[in-house]
């Protein structure tokens, strides 16, 4: 069996951001369900939060290939 350990490391490192992204969107859905009229505002915040947490996973991807 061949492969790169880096990719295993990336898989591990993606767990955290995966949970984070899930939490961000769960909160977004909750918020919209409670106050549908706040959707526009929440959407922006949700996507910024999503981008922030996913940034970590993407850094992991970069490091998996770069190192």
């Amino acid at each position, binding site marked *: 069996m*061949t*492969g*790169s350990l*880096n990719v295993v490391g990336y898989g591990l490192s993606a767990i955290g951001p995966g949970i984070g992204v899930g939490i961000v969107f769960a909160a977004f859905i909750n918020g919209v369900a409670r106050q549908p009229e706040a959707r526009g505002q929440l959407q922006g915040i949700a996507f910024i939060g999503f981008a922030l947490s996913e940034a970590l996973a993407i850094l992991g991807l*970069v490091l998996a*290939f*770069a190192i």
Partner: protein
Amino acid sequence: MDIVLAAEQLNPLVPHTVEIVVGLIAFGLLYWVLAKTVFPQFEKIYAERTDKIEGGLKRAEEAQAEAQRIKQQYDDQLAGLRAEAARIRDDARAEGQQIKAELRADAEAEAARIRARAEEQILAQREAAVRSLRAEVGSLATQLAERIIGSELSDPARRSATVDSFLQELDGVDSRQPTGAN
């Protein structure tokens, strides 16, 4: 390890220059063409659509306002006409009253005038009658006296008949006289 070496040779994160150049040019042209020719059309159509809907509403509002204005005008006119008619009626009534009053005054004046003239006439006739009586009474008395003296004074019946016939003669004059005066 050779795996790492292979990964370094074929690092997927290393960009291909040709792709970057072609991609940027393609996207640039795409953006240029769309922004110049397509999206303004879309925006124009959106604006027209909005204008059509909002314009229709606005036109309906304007028509309603116009109708309201005309109705107001009509009402005003009607009220004016009604007032005018009432005024004319009042005027006519006042005028009629005035005319009636004038006619009555005229008639009264006429009546007064006629009465005055009649009185004058009556007075004048009476004076004339008095004058003629005064002239006649002397001669009549003289004639009567002559007849009495000429006939027999002793017979009272003849005397009274003479007086009566004389008076009857006079009555015939009297009864003729007032009808002529009237």
